[in-house]
């Protein structure tokens, strides 16, 4: 009888230990789920911040490209409208398309679309598509759009026109 009682006590103690461990593992599991979801949310916020910064940098970079910059006589930092139009012809799908230039700029801008819209001057209201590498599967990308105002110098009319750059940068969605 005494041996049977000790056996039941041992079974009870064993079951109790098992329960304590299971509850502990359950609590730790819940803690881990919270930790990883918080960590993932923070990572997503960080990625979003980076993509925003990259989009601003891309837009600013277009404005500061030396190859389309005005010469030193045009009063400092501005974009030369004829150079811009020439670059648009090289990167566009038309007759002036330059494959080597496209490869160079794709290396710089990757998946993005850049358009210039003139607000004043002879070309007011006109839209100049400069670069278009919109992804074919947009569902796999997130898009950040930036508008940046600038002045564009027309060397023929010797006038500064107001315009804005519409820059959309596509970043591949992070999986997992």
């Amino acid at each position, binding site marked *: 009888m005494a041996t049977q009682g000790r056996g039941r006590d041992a079974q009870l103690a064993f079951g109790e230990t098992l329960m304590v461990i299971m509850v502990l593992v359950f609590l730790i599991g819940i803690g881990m789920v919270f930790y990883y979801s918080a*960590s993932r949310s923070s990572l997503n916020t*960080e990625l979003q911040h980076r993509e925003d910064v990259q989009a601003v940098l891309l837009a*600013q970079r277009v404005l500061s490209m030396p190859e389309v910059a005005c010469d030193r006589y045009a009063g400092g930092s501005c974009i030369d409208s004829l150079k811009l139009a020439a670059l648009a012809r090289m990167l566009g799908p038309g007759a002036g398309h330059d494959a080597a230039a496209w490869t160079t700029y794709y290396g*710089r801008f990757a998946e993005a679309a850049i358009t210039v819209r003139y607000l004043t001057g002879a070309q007011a209201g006109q839209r100049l598509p400069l670069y278009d590498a919109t992804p074919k599967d947009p569902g796999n990308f997130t898009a950040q759009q930036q508008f940046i105002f600038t002045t564009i110098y027309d060397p023929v009319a010797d006038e500064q026109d107001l315009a804005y750059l519409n820059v959309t940068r596509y970043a591949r969605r992070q999986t997992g």
Partner: protein
Amino acid sequence: MTRKGQLGIQFHWVFTLIGGILFLLFFFVLIRSVLHSDQARTTRELSFDVGTIIAKAPLSPDTFSVADVPDATYRFACEQDAQGGVTYSYVRIDNQSYEDTGLRDIAVFSPATVRGDQLFTATATWQAPFPIASMVLLSNNRTRYVLVGLPQVTKRFVDQGNLGGFNILYVGPGGVSSVTDEGFDRYRFIYFGGYTAPPSAFLTARNSALVVHQDPDGETGTLDFHDSLAPGAPSPPGVPYAGEAMLAAAAFTDSYAAFRCNMAKAEGSLATAKKILLDRLKAILALYDAGNSAHVPDGRCQADYLRGKALIEAYPSPGEESAYNAYVQQGNLRELEDIDSRLVTRGCPRLY
């Protein structure tokens, strides 16, 4: 105690031991994963910060800026394949590697290693004479640049490139022997004129030199790279340069290979800049030919336009580096610049 009871107690201990080990293992894995994730995050942030510092430098040409960064060793590398194409270009922070996509098309001229908690950047625009590419000059206060030459020449070099914020020491043509080691990580001697060996304390592999042989125009010439000042170290033959920005780029890069690799990035823009320029000139000349009196420059502009057009069309093909250098040496670009200056003073549209 019965034999069954003894077995029960032993099982209890074995169970506790296995459970304990699993428990410890679990916490070990958890802590390791948290630490690893934390380290990866710090590394990622640092990489992004340095990438942003470099990427935003070209946005403010001709400005000097200081960026505070975590104290680390930053190694800059640029590698080319046999055909001269840039294969890798990256910054490695404390031996952690980063993906190179951000740096592949930014020409960064820096010492191979920059140690410390600050990065100094300045951006020069390479013009030949029209703007071609932005060149990022990077260093910090632990690399000293010793400029040897006539004060008017060395000061002009620093003032034109807005390089006064870097750690610079001016020395007269005969004063190299008086330079003392003040404990900087490395010294780069830049000679405007003839080379005279610095004191023996500087003749080590970590220090380097550049000898600049300027042409009378001050904007072109030849560069002799001495990647190491260690006795017996080889130095490649002189290479031509065109423009103050290219000279500054050479001054900030302590190896010829890194200079060539980053120049390859800048030269990639040369072909595009040339095509844009030609297309632009065609547009101006088309307006001229169309006889639209509202937009056409007057007769005083015609001769310079036609000469300018002929000069621009005489550019060597992209990639023909020796032909391009010869072109620069011939002074055609200077003539083009003179034409442009005349057009400006006469109120004509610019050529570039």
